[in-house]
């Protein structure tokens, strides 16, 4: 029973190792938990799970094994924080729509029903009126006509009648906690670390001391220097949504790696290309934006800039005013790109798309020209090359040309 539990946990995505499993057995033998399923659950969780992010997966496997119950909710459902759902609902729903939600018994009910459906449903489904799938009249799934439909995993909105697009990718901020594969990226990014002496002088400068002591006829003369600290500053611009959906995982890993490596790291999101504003929170991408001019004013020219995006779009989105797919942009993306690269001479563009495909897309070619060919693939090698470009000796920043609408 326990061995099966162990393997099911591994299958369920909880990284358990044999050592931890043996610890659990040791704990059971020592009588830490006995005669109570609850105690056993707590003990198993504290010994086997090492991260609160895995608690949920653990619970699912536990329930499956020890209650003999069927699979609990699918990953997607588990990942939706209820407060997010409520916040979104409160903001986007009209009174009328809210009443319609009540048609199914309110949000809790809606979620609960969805959860049950996901348990029942094993295969992909299309049509029909009960299952989750596409093109049906069930309240769940994409392209539905049911007014209280919840849309799952669909990029565009077909008939704007679903209560809320449940597209994870659009609204979820990049999870910076992906562990797998980040080690390599961390090591690559670490090369960018530049240590500088800053702050109080509290470390012994050995060479200086020997030198000074020798000059002092052998009598000790201590020399102190300030500690070396990581002084590298980075601005990270990440493309979200649209064609980037395929690359989200890679970007998550990159973001996760970058977060822990630098003391000064500011990140911003954009969609397809950079225009006059970017945002920090995908949930509030339309209400809380940061003007690019403000970024140019706020962050010094010694910041290094990393863009991450596949640069795959219509060429007009770069070259023409008003080319943006999301809003009316007064000035072309290329103008904004030149402003940023002029202000921050050390920049690179990381492209998660495979390098051999770059030449087939016109927008990638245009972007490469805009970034002085400093576009690199997101591979360990590409990262190395990108870091090399970022480490280049400091260049004097160009003059930032003003905008027509700058106040």
């Amino acid at each position: 029973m326990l061995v099966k539990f162990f393997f099911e946990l591994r299958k369920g995505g909880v990284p358990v190792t044999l050592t931890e499993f043996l610890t659990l057995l040791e704990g059971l033998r020592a009588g830490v938990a006995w005669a109570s399923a609850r105690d056993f659950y707590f003990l198993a969780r504290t010994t086997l799970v090492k991260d609160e992010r895995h608690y949920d997966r653990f619970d699912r496997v536990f329930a499956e094994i020890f209650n003999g119950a069927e699979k609990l909710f699918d990953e997607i459902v588990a990942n939706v924080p209820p407060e997010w759902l409520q916040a979104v609902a409160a903001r986007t729903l009209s009174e009328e729509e809210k009443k319609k939600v009540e048609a199914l018994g309110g949000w809790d009910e809606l979620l609960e029903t969805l959860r049950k459906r996901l348990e029942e449903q094993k295969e992909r489904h299309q049509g029909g009126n009960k299952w989750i799938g596409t093109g049906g009249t069930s309240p769940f799934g994409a392209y539905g006509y049911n007014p209280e439909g919840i849309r799952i995993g669909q990029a565009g909105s077909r008939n704007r009648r679903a209560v809320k697009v449940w597209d994870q990718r659009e609204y979820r901020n990049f999870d910076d906690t992906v562990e797998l594969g980040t080690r390599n990226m961390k090591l690559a990014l670490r090369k960018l670390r530049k240590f500088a002496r800053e702050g109080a002088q509290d470390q012994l400068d050995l060479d200086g001391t020997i030198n000074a002591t020798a000059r002092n006829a052998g009598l000790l003369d201590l020399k102190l220097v300030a500690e070396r600290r990581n002084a590298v500053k980075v601005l990270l611009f990440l493309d979200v949504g649209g064609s980037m959906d395929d690359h989200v995982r890679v970007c998550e890993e990159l973001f996760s790696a970058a977060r822990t490596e630098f003391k000064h790291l500011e990140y911003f999101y954009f969609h397809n290309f950079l225009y006059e504003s970017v945002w920090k929170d995908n949930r509030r991408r339309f209400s809380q934006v940061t003007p690019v001019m403000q970024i140019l004013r706020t962050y010094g020219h010694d910041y290094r800039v990393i863009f991450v995006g596949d640069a795959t779009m219509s060429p007009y989105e770069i070259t023409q005013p008003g080319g943006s797919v999301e809003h009316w942009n007064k000035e072309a993306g290329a103008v904004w790109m030149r402003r940023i690269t002029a202000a921050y001479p050390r920049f690179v563009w990381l492209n998660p798309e495979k390098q051999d495909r770059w030449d087939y897309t016109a927008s990638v070619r245009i972007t490469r020209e805009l970034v002085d060919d400093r576009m690199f693939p997101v591979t360990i090698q590409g990262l190395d090359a990108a870091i090399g470009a970022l480490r280049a000796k400091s260049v004097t920043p160009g003059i930032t040309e003003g905008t027509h609408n700058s106040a």
Partner: protein
Amino acid sequence: MSERFSGTDRYIATDDLMMAVNAAVTLARPLLIKGEPGTGKTQLAQEIARALNKPMFEWHVKSTSKAQQGLYEYDAVSRLRDSQLGDARVHDIANYILKGSLWQAFESDVQPVLLIDEIDKADIEFPNDLLRELDRMEFYVYETRQLVKARNRPIIVITSNNEKELPDAFLRRCFFHYIRFPDQDTMSRIVEVHFPGLKKELLSEALGAFFQLRETPGLKKKPSTSELLDWIKLLVAEDIDPAVLRSQDPKKTLPILHGALLKNEQDVHLFEQLIFLNRRAR
């Protein structure tokens, strides 16, 4: 299983936390504690020491901390200076070995509690450098060629605020517990412990306002247990009538003495915006 931790008169522990502590104590494994700031991670170690009547050693980790500092430090500079002055102490290198908190804990005659606070503040490699010490509870002092072994395996409590990921090899050696934010029941027990005899009315009004505040979407820093306790302390000190709390509609005014709960101007601002919207909606 002679001793079990079950919370103290000052500290309310939930069942799963008790289990985690007792398992870690019984199996002599370090216990890694995570949780929202202000949920009593650091206090836990102090309370374990108090409840089990054991001495307590603390090691507060900073961004500049090295693993070595917890073991010992060799003060080469003062030895060099002493040699220049002809001090006799200079012949024994042991005079210049300064014991760190881990060493002190290892030397304790009775089983001690060792708190390693905010381990995530240090460099990525910090936890890796402590693997052998935490596993075998021993380390080697190169300067004096001496092996230091724990006389009694200390109960080790490690706290983390999740600022950095901890390496897998380190995690495997620890027990883990995530302190969840207390629910309303647990919270009233916690408040009861800190303010015995608090007027029931005031307590329920304050808790209601507090949880409502926490639920506001978009708060930068959600107020935590410690902030609630501060706030209640203020309410008591100012002798606020529970009726005042009740009469306030949290949707329309900022809660009274909100400075204790909302810690940055963006949050206060967000609140003012919400209040403004709510007033207009009327």
